[in-house]
């Protein structure tokens, strides 16, 4: 395990706990009818975005998925504006026009959650292309988060080939939670080792325990350093688990075994972090408890902020389609 500063440990725990509680709070609000549409919770998978984004700065870019709240939070987006977005409010991250599956913050290097499986992967490659074009690989890399399901999409393979032949600073982070919607990876993916896909592109491929934030942090550190040195992309196969169904109303017990879920929950990223840092006296139980309290308060604030926020003006229907267009109503009415 890499030596981590107290500050970094605090960031890791805060970020993972923030993601966990955001997802749980978001689900509560969804079931209360306050979310305006479909949401895809990522609780259980917190170690992956946290361990990777711990190496990134605001100048690095990430592409994300339909299950992207964790990526947003790990990249520094504000939970109150995310909650407001999911509730469709004018104060939302995207003015209430994107929703859970389209949250972006370009000021934070976040290219957006994306509802087409695999479609954001070339965007991260493009961000890396910009960095290379400008000779800034050492300070700006692209990280593409995608699931095991996306590894069956052509554009994901095209993206890996492009990044490999052009030696672009990209991390391909496969959040392998074992299920594409209800379909298990053992059925849909022709190998049980997704990291082996890297061989076909002549790039490093690494299997990582995605339930262990320290393992993710170490593997991501090497991949990020390689990218910043201008040596090209790395594929990380991060084995993880989502605690909920594919989307808020999906019951995963219909297609997953209870023993499987229990086995992953026994290795829960928050619990194992707490045990490890307290056993090694890196953080105290009191410190951890204070972090949890502050996150609880943040969630109460986020929900209240969202509920108190206005709905978007009807004129927003027509705005932001184009930067410039001769007809303000786009010829619709």
């Amino acid at each position: 395990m890499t030596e981590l500063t107290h500050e970094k440990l605090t960031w890791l725990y805060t970020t993972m706990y923030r993601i966990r509680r955001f997802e749980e709070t978001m689900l509560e609000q969804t079931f209360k009818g306050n979310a305006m549409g479909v949401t895809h919770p990522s609780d259980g998978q917190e170690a992956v975005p946290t361990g990777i984004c711990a190496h990134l700065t605001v100048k690095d870019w990430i592409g994300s998925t339909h299950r992207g709240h964790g990526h947003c939070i790990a990249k520094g987006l504000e939970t109150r504006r995310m909650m407001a977005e999911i509730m469709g409010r004018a104060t939302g991250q995207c003015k209430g026009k994107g929703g859970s599956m389209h949250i972006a913050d370009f000021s934070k290097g976040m290219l957006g959650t994306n509802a087409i499986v695999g479609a954001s992967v070339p965007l991260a490659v493009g961000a890396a292309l910009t960095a290379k074009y400008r000779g800034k690989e050492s300070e700006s890399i692209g990280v593409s988060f995608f699931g095991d399901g996306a590894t069956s999409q052509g554009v994901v393979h095209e993206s890996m080939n492009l990044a490999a032949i052009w030696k672009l600073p990209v991390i391909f982070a496969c959040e392998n939670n074992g299920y594409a919607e209800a379909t298990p990876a053992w059925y849909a993916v022709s190998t049980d080792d997704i990291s082996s896909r890297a061989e076909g592109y002549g790039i490093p491929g690494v299997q990582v325990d995605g339930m262990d934030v320290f393992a993710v942090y170490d593997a991501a550190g090497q991949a990020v350093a390689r990218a910043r040195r201008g040596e090209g992309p790395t594929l990380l196969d991060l084995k993880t688990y989502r605690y909920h169904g594919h989307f808020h109303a999906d019951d995963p017990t219909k297609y997953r075994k209870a023993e499987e879920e229990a086995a992953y929950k026994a290795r829960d990223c928050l619990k194992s972090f707490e045990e490890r840092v307290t056993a090694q006296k890196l953080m105290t139980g009191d410190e951890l408890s204070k972090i949890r309290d502050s996150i609880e308060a943040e969630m109460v604030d986020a929900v209240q902020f969202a509920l108190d926020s206005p709905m978007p003006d009807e004129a927003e229907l027509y705005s932001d389609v184009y930067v410039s267009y001769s007809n303000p109503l786009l010829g619709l009415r």
Partner: protein
Amino acid sequence: MTTTEQRPQSKTDPLGPGYKVAGQEMRYRDAFNKTLRDELNHDPDVFIMGEDISGGFDKDTKEPLDAWGGPFAATKGLVQDFGPERIRDAPISEAGFVGAAIGAALTGLRPVVDLMYFDFVTVAYDQLLSNAAKSRYMFGGQTKVPITLFARSGAGTGHAAQHSESFYSMLAHIPGLKVVVPSDPYSCRGLLSAAIRDDDPVFLVNDKKLINLTGFVPDESYVIELGKGRYLKRGKDVTLVGMSYTSIVCKEAADKLAGQGIDAEVIDMMSLSPFDEDILLESVMKTNRVVIVDEDTPRASMASEFAAVIADKAFDYLDAPVKRVTAPHTPVPYNRGLENAFMPKPDDVVATVLKMMAR
């Protein structure tokens, strides 16, 4: 938008492009190449990406050879002057490199993508629709996607069903995307410059039948405002509406009609999204008759869209039903005779007008 024009692109100017400015006759393909060079010089953030746009690499030195210089030599000579980073040859991965270009556009560059044949749009369609066209809207106006794409369309060159599409409406249908269709070297240069300088995603379609045609092009750089049509000929009896190569079809039809005493007005739409409703309505309200000529297949086509707008907003001015002369609802056939029958031709337009005038 940087749309200072060399001279006003007046839609009432029947003399067409280049009037009273210094310039020269050149081929469409040369105007295209010259414009790319202008824009690469104009802005260091502009780069070009596509299959074989330099074309071939030396195995020993790894240097690009410029053996092809792009499909139809569109980018010939550029890699020598701008290097392989700015003239980036891409593998056959349309979805991948269009997606990467969108990612580059989202992070500050201005990519120009050569998609070779227009038919290949469908291979990259998800990236165009879901990422290029929607990012600005779904992210609440935070970002812009200043990407330009171009490709070659059209039947008439024996390229058969999968290399001859003109499905403009498949792109014009997408909110967030702009679509332009030059019809001569002048409009090619002005629209391509405007597209590359525009902050929205723009698709420019080159009909293969135009590529070796010549026309007047001003020496100085200029842009044509996106969304504007122009009159190619003024007339009073009937309006002929063309786009891309069918604007030439309309002009030829108008010449033939003149021989029969019918004074046709010809509009070249130049932009399909947004498109110039004003010029359509102005002309139809004057001539009271309109024939729309489109090489695309007819269902849900631009011809249908223009017809709907005219029926909606100028119905009371019409002395005859709106007529469309289009390709049939078939793929493009290979056989030369069949292919010729597929394309709208001046005689088809003339016959339609004569029938209309005989009412």
